[in-house]
């Protein structure tokens, strides 16, 4: 997985509450397709008026936001369907971090699988960031220092689970890390087969 250390880039505000993963990537773009194709369909229902015709009202179609690498979002961002294509679609348009008051729980975990950083901040801080997120205005996210510096503002601290932070900084792969614990898993299962034999079919 790609490492995440610091990120400096434009942030696009998408402040509506409860933006769901059906909006981030419609299901028809997931059926029988490759993840590398999904960026073209990120936010398709909002980004296009019809096939291939951009909606000029959508923030990511506006000058100064097209190259955004950060999203600033409303509460419960990416709720709904578990589709990991939502992360792959954001990755496909170059989004590397999302800042919101809260996230859909499945999406939140999915982000770490692709080296995208979801950051939870208090609603008033997110609102302030959204107000500062002008076209072309750069934010800097420093994962080592756990601080975000908004345009014309002071650094704001944020938290990431230490385990997740370490994995992102080193670009570690979850499966690889867990496979190192194969003995612990086997020991758990040996004991569990005695406690709950019905879980393990003969």
């Amino acid at each position, binding site marked *: 997985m790609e490492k995440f250390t610091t990120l400096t880039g434009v942030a696009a505000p998408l402040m*509506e509450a*409860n933006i*769901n993963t059906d909006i981030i990537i419609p299901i028809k773009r997931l059926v029988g397709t490759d993840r590398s194709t999904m960026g073209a369909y990120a936010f398709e229902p909002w980004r296009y008026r019809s096939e291939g015709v951009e909606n000029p009202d959508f923030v990511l179609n506006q000058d100064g936001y097209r190259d955004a690498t950060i999203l600033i979002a409303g509460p419960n961002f990416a709720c709904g369907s*578990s589709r990991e294509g939502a992360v792959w679609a954001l990755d496909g348009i170059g989004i590397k971090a999302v800042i919101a008051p*809260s996230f859909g729980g499945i999406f939140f975990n999915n982000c770490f699988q692709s080296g995208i950083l979801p950051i939870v901040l208090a609603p008033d801080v997110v609102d302030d960031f959204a107000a500062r997120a002008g076209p072309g205005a750069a934010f800097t996210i420093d994962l080592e220092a756990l601080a975000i510096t908004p345009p014309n503002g002071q650094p704001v601290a944020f938290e990431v689970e230490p385990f997740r932070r370490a994995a992102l900084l080193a670009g570690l792969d979850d*499966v690889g890390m867990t496979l190192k614990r194969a003995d*612990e898993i086997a020991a758990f*299962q040996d004991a569990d087969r005695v406690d709950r034999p019905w879980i393990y079919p003969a």
Partner: protein
Amino acid sequence: MTGPQTLFDKVWDAHVVADLGGGMNLIHVDRILLHDLSGLRALRMLKDQGHAVRHPELCFAAPDHTVSSDPATGGVGGFHETCVVPLAEMTAAAGIRHYAMGERGFGILHVMGPELGVTLPGATLVCGDSHTCTHGGVGAFAMGIGSSELVHAMVTQTLMQRKPKRLRVTFDGALPDWVSAKDMILHVIGREGAASGDGHAVEYAGQAIRSMSVEGRMTICNLSIEMGAKIGMVAPDDTVFAYLEGRDHAPKGAQWDAAVAHWRGLATDAGAAFDTEVDVDVADVKPQITWGTSPEHVIAVDGRVPDPDAAPDAEHAHALREAQAYAGLAPGEPIEGVGIQWVFIGSCTNSRVEDLRAAARVLDGRKVAEGVRAWAVPGSEQTKADAEAEGLDRVFKDAGFEWRLPGCSLCVGANGENVPAGERCVSTSNRNFVGRQGPGSRTHLASPAMAAAAAVTGRVTDVRKLMDGEA
């Protein structure tokens, strides 16, 4: 011995393989379900990464998302070659039990899992589908995950998770006639909001849950994700044990007795603490229906579309206006009487035999209104056979419904089955998102009885009025 514990704490603690530090844990996964979109994708990712499935005997698969529900096709839809066939081939190669369409046992994974006894109380179960929380209806700790996490689960039989907070929703009181499990949970989502369960595992408790069937409990757990909670559970009790005993994959003989003894100890202890508590008197709940583009956009059937000017802030007002524009409804408009073109009775929320019975009670002796296309899609082959044995299929067909083949069908728009743009569908499914049932489609979520009532009048209808005197 620790202090009093919740159902969720007990099940969580029994599955911790390792503390990873910083609040993260490695959790054992007891059951993995694979479908034809995320499951197939995960199998391919696993193969590309050069890994093997650690415990194929703990995995179960079925192609529920992309199969056709049209009886004329025999289930073969437009994605048969790209999704259905590869899932069968890859699970066979991995030694995973696969249920093919048409086979006894096949169905929507969240219907067939409990039906086959694959889902067990106190077990952890994952699937690449957010409605995996449904399985909590039998007391499982079940949640949806992404494809990468699914690979992790298949390769290691574990998942990395942060322990969620605990939320209890207590439903007390007696449920009025024609008010169902679906109405109870939609009422909670409307009152508390679509993000109210973020970061929580939900336990549903109270007298109205204890007296409810397993099917109803699954409907309630199914919508946990629509209030933001990945996990919803009901403590297993005699109702659950009677439901599971004798099912294909349920434990047998002495092992069954040992399992039941274990499961009886899982209920939340008196005095156990929850991070959040929500109390609902179900006597106050009326038949619910959604008007907008989030499950929290829900009102009682005698209610009116809300006024954005009365919203708490500009963002909320904007969201309401956008939803009303999409839905083609005006502020203050009564929802009752709004004309509809489609009715869908199905999905992992409401496609079990009890749901079909509730709809059939309304449809018996009535006809689907002119201009309405109405589908009944049983959740599994077993449900379909059970319903046909009771003659429910005749009631649906005589009323003018199409009686179709099991699958996700019109809930998800992944199989070529769509509601046309601009048309309105009263649906027993779980999401009314923009474009959910097809680009431009307008979805109104409701119970099976409410959906049946709308089918016969061609309008959003209060089933209590339609059935006045027949309760």
